[in-house]
């Protein structure tokens, strides 16, 4: 059996006295989309940042195409990072650059593409996410949904094998949420990219995922297909997907 494209094994992470991850393990085959769900502050974004090497785990392994990225030095890690694209929660577009320059950034700086060529590819990627003719605008001139799509265009510009989406639909209206979900599906169908998404939005999770994993108290509580999660017998999973404040998940009393 071939090695999964991503394998996380026994991941542990604490910030000070607070334990965030307490032995997280899962694997993902090429072309699959995994969505990680879980309450706020359960460490979903921290998990994504560990997978791309922005945060080092305390222990455990993260294997990307069989290579444990937790053991790599900065230069080696950068080579692995080139295989990945990361869509940030707040888009994290560079304020000082135009939209076109943002999307062309990686192509120009890493792939050493000449700037006009990089900008040409950036225009194509922006067209792919339905944003033609905005290359000259600044990020501050864009709406929330446009910023998310530019963030996606920037992440896919270098043709990554793996895409990591950190709350790609948070803060968007329901229609725009569906637009982004469709876009994630379209990218998967067109380029066969493996993806991990973090979201609270169950409608989007059911639509885009091959697998859904529920994170609770530092561990993966359940992992399964959207159908399996929807029909879960676990009371914590059931409470979360129903969006109810009544149940075993501790909630602040108001």
């Amino acid at each position, binding site marked *: 059996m071939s090695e999964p494209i991503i394998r996380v094994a026994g991941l542990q992470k604490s910030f000070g006295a607070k334990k965030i991850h307490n032995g997280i393990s899962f694997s993902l085959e090429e072309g699959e989309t995994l969505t990680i769900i879980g309450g706020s502050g359960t460490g979903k974004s921290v998990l994504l940042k560990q997978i*791309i090497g922005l945060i080092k785990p305390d222990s455990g392994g993260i294997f990307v195409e069989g290579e444990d990225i937790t053991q790599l030095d900065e230069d080696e890690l950068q080579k692995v990072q080139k295989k990945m694209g*990361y869509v*940030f929660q707040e888009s994290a577009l560079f304020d000082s650059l135009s939209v076109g320059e943002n999307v062309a950034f990686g192509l120009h700086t890493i792939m050493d593409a000449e700037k006009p060529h990089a900008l040409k590819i950036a225009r194509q990627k922006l067209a792919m996410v339905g944003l033609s003719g905005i290359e000259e605008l600044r990020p501050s001139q864009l709406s929330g949904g446009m910023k998310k799509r530019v963030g996606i265009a920037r992440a896919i510009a270098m043709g990554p094998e793996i895409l990591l989406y950190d709350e790609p639909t948070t803060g968007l209206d329901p229609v725009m949420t569906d637009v982004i979900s469709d876009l994630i599906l379209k990218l998967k169908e067109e380029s066969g990219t493996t993806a991990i998404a973090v979201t609270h939005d169950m409608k989007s999770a059911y639509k885009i995922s091959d697998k859904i994993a529920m994170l609770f108290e530092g561990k993966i509580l359940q992992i399964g297909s959207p159908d399996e999660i929807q029909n879960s017998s676990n009371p914590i999973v059931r409470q979360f997907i129903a969006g109810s404040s009544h149940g075993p998940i501790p909630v602040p009393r108001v």
Partner: protein
Amino acid sequence: MLSPNNPVVIAARKLLDVSQATGEVVLLIRRTFSWMVRAPIERNNLLYQMVEMGNRTFPVASLTLVFTGMVVALQTGFSMIRGFNEPLYIGTALGHSIFKELSPVLTGMVFAGRVGAAIAAELGTMKVTEQLDALYTLGTNPVKYLAVPRFIAAITMLPLLVIYADLMGVIGGYIVAMIQLRIPSTEYIDDITNLDLDIVLHGFLKSFFFALIIVAVSCYKGFTTKGGAEGVGKATTAAVVISMVMILISDYFVSAVLVSLGIG
């Protein structure tokens, strides 16, 4: 066991924090210089930083040094008149104080306030909006992309601004010497031109250290910003205050070294 609120524990913790921060600033300087030699420097980015730093500092430094030159000439002139009945050695006294101390220190202060604050605020905002993380994910090291051009620009621009500020100080002194003290312009100019070049070199060399302090502290504060808009504000204030205090403290030690080497 001492309680965490015990003054001794608080003082010890502060001392540890300062030691850690100092170590991290030194590491940042080392990493920046290592990137300078390892990777090609983006010329456009560097040029943009140099122009920005010059533009930000130029007007305030001009105003500061013209008036400082004026007040130095005024104070020296009237002290001389009280002691010797005539305004002697105005240019000489002004040259020593402006070139060696006032021009590098005051221009450094203006640079810290204008450029240091801008660096800390910009990098701090990039940190809290995850733009620094985005750089990493796009295979670009933030030290290479952001710190290197700022370091080179600051270390180049502050010494140039100090030379310019020297000239502004001389012009300020000249105005007072001519109009208020009524000394012949040739006497004032002779006083200045007869000064050793070492005097100017003393202030010029010091400004390299001041530039390094300002840019290293400001980049460090920006890169380590935490906690949203409030964090950016705190990082910016800290960058300016620490840079200014460090300029004043290091001024003594750098001056002592330069004097012992016979420079100035």
